């Protein structure tokens, strides 16, 4: 029951966003010091009954004492009253101390009673433990027997597997050879096709010149076949993508400003051993902003050209596939994982696996930040999203938020980012009641065409930092 009450209190704190509280205990003054001062005050209280002065100036002192005698008498009264008050207070303190002591004893008695109950429970538990140990021993013996059987079976399976692997390797080598042959043949066919197409074009020109009807355009199937063949000769995209990024996403102060919000989110990691891991870091624009803010960080990217660029800026970046990298990290070791325009490159199942791994490696209270194109903006969802040839599919903000919550993260928040400048322009108001719908429609269109280009979904691993 008390566990449930503790759980209720813990959940209430979480619901209210309360952090750990520190209880400050007041420290009482040392009774010994009070006692010494009081003794000294008592000894000197009777200021008008001091021994007769002695020495060479005793006559002067006697005269002064005689003249000021009435004031010393009053001082004695004040001193004695003060001592009385201090004594009364000390008594009160003693009384309270006694009460406290009594309360402490009462608590100790209650605790002792609990301990008694615990001991009795322990006795019962010991009996249970003995029974369980016996059962465990029996199970261990059974287990040993099973293990030996299992080892024999494993040996048999391993030898079968070796045979199968050998067959498979032969098959793969054979298939690869045939695939290479087929590819060479296909490329040769494609070359022949291009030559044929050129000849056909020349023929068409000649036929056109003599006024004969032209041949209809190639069918879709023919076009697709040619495209497929052309794909076989596609160069590696990495180098092109590096130039694509440089062309469409220039670095600079605008980016610094864009990332400023995330810096505030991640400031809690300053001085921490748990770094930010920025997945798909590219040329390291975001990483550079984090470094400038003093936040420990590391970047990952699969594109070696991009990693070279980032390293040239003095950033800690590795060529790595994010999921594999995170799988290799221990639990509770990373302060935050950020992925700026990454998740839209991933198939849904990989995204799910990525979130699960992030949830595992984050420290309690650690953050995840995903920024991705805003598919609720039609201009983005229907057009600009596809400008990047490596994009997989747009991700709806509500799905991403749901996914983070479903995989156990909390404090999920969605931020819409980077609207076009026209988004801030006011929509003209239509006074006529019949046109109010038009005004709302314009507002919808403003969002759909000029609204936030991106959004960020943030989540936090449960627990305090």
């Amino acid at each position: 029951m008390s566990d449930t009450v503790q759980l209720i209190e813990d959940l209430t704190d979480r619901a209210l966003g309360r952090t750990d509280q520190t209880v400050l205990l007041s420290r009482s003054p040392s009774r010994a010091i009070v006692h010494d001062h009081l003794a000294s005050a008592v000894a000197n209280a009777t200021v008008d009954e001091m021994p007769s002065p002695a020495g060479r100036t005793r006559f002067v002192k006697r005269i002064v004492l005689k003249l000021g005698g009435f004031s010393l008498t009053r001082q004695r009264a004040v001193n004695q009253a003060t001592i009385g008050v201090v004594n009364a207070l000390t008594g009160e303190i003693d009384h309270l101390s006694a009460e406290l002591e009594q309360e402490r004893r009462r608590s100790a008695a209650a605790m002792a009673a609990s301990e008694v109950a615990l001991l009795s429970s322990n006795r019962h538990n010991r009996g249970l433990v003995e029974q369980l140990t016996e059962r465990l021993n029996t199970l261990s013996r059974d287990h040993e027997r099973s293990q030996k059987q299992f080892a024999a079976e494993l040996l048999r399976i391993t030898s079968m597997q070796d045979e199968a692997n050998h067959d498979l390797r032969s098959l793969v080598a054979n298939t690869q050879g045939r695939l290479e042959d087929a590819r060479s043949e296909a490329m040769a066919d494609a070359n022949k096709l291009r030559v044929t197409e050129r000849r056909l074009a020349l023929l068409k020109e000649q036929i056109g010149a003599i006024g004969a009807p032209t041949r209809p355009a190639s069918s879709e199937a023919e076009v697709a076949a040619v495209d497929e063949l052309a794909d076989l000769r596609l160069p590696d995209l990495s180098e092109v993508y590096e130039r694509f990024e440089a062309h469409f996403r220039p670095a600079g102060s605008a980016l610094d400003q864009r990332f400023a919000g995330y810096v505030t989110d991640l400031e809690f990691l300053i001085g921490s051993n748990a770094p930010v891991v920025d997945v798909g870091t590219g040329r390291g624009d975001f990483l550079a902003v984090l470094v400038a803010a003093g936040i420990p960080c590391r970047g990952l990217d699969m594109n070696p050209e991009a990693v070279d660029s980032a390293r040239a800026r003095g950033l800690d970046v590795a060529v790595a596939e994010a999921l594999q990298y995170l799988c290799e990290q221990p639990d509770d070791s990373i302060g935050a994982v950020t992925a700026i325009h990454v998740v839209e490159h991933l198939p849904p199942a990989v995204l799910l696996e990525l979130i699960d791994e992030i949830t595992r490696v984050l420290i309690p209270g650690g953050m995840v930040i995903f920024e991705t194109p805003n598919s609720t903006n039609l201009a983005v969802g229907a057009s600009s999203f596809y400008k990047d040839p490596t994009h997989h599919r747009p991700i709806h903000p509500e799905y991403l938020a749901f996914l983070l919550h479903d995989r156990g993260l909390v404090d999920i928040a969605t931020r819409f980012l980077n609207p076009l400048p026209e988004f801030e322009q006011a929509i003209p108001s239509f006074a006529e009641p019949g046109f109010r719908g038009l005004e709302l429609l314009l507002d919808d269109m403003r969002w759909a065409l000029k609204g936030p280009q991106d959004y960020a979904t943030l989540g936090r691993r449960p627990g305090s930092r």
Partner: protein
Amino acid sequence: MPLRVAIVKPDWRIRGGFELVVDRLVEHLTTHGHYVDMLTFDASHTDRRPFGVRVSATEWDRCPLFFGYLAQVEASRAVTAARADLVISTQPPSFVVDHPRHLSIFYHHIRPYYELSDVFIRSTMVDEHMHLATTSAVRQIDADAIGRVRHVMAGSETVAGRLRAYNDRTDRLSVFHAGPNSPPPVEIAPFGSGHHALCVSRHDFPKRTELFVHAAALAAGVQCESVGTGGRLGYLRRLAGEFALGGAPPSMTAEELWLAPHPYIDPDSVHVVSSNLRLAGAVSDDELGHLYRDAFCVVAPALLEDYGLTVIEAMSHGKPVIVCSDGGHLCHFVQHEVNGLVVEPTGPAIAAAMRLLDDDRVLAARLGEAARDTASTFTWQRALCEFDDALEMTMS
């Protein structure tokens, strides 16, 4: 200026009186050119990981209402209403939504943690220790969230009083008086006419239809009609049968009659014994209209009600209403011996009041006429003006 209004509403998969109120407000907003976006979430969803903490089945079963409430708090907070010019929250805990222009239509708290807390403990339906712990927790969470709401529109003066008492909400607090669900009847039966006493209520804890059943058994000469469905209908039918066969004891304690928990009884499995009481269950709107017209009084025995639309409906038919002195907001509608009778919450007291109105039809006519006047002040026109005022205060 048309507004983009987001209405946040937990979806309980039922359509009751509150859903009808929301429909009216949506219609009002769209008629005035505003754009309304309904943001709902499944309130029956039981994700057993509120705020990232996995709650074991054992712990969940100790206080399911509390853990369910936390899951709803989390779901309400996850609602994205950033694009809205104005957010209107509805049933608890949708008021935890964070928005700078947030109007809460506050009809009730989670009642077992507030005005019914003590009743639930006395009923032994909850473990006292757990209930006190969860009550404290819910009140802390609610007070924090209600304090952030820009404007709160309470469903009645009684609810506004509870907001002040429990949540320390004193400013930017107004009251909304919903009109009746169906338009008031144009033609009504003559004041003081009728041949039965009527009770219209859900048969759930703590609506206390048991008191009406007890009263019917004690007032043998008075024909009694009860309309409504609910988890306690089977129990009420069995109780009525026992009273009809063995006679009703003149005094039964509340604990015996309505406070103690009773196992669910299938209403169809109970043999109906012929008596002066008919427990009709659900009836059509037309049949309900006839039952109101042919009633000489209407009994509303519920405990600590937030509002009481059925009482306004009864009054609009020109019928005096009998309510209990602990009926909450029902006692705001009914003034004793002015437009109805306010009696002690016991079967004998209700039986005596029914007999009085049956025997003294002049009194019944006078109270019924006054009741009709009272009901005429509760209109949707007035309610929508109050709503518009609250909207303006939220936007200011």
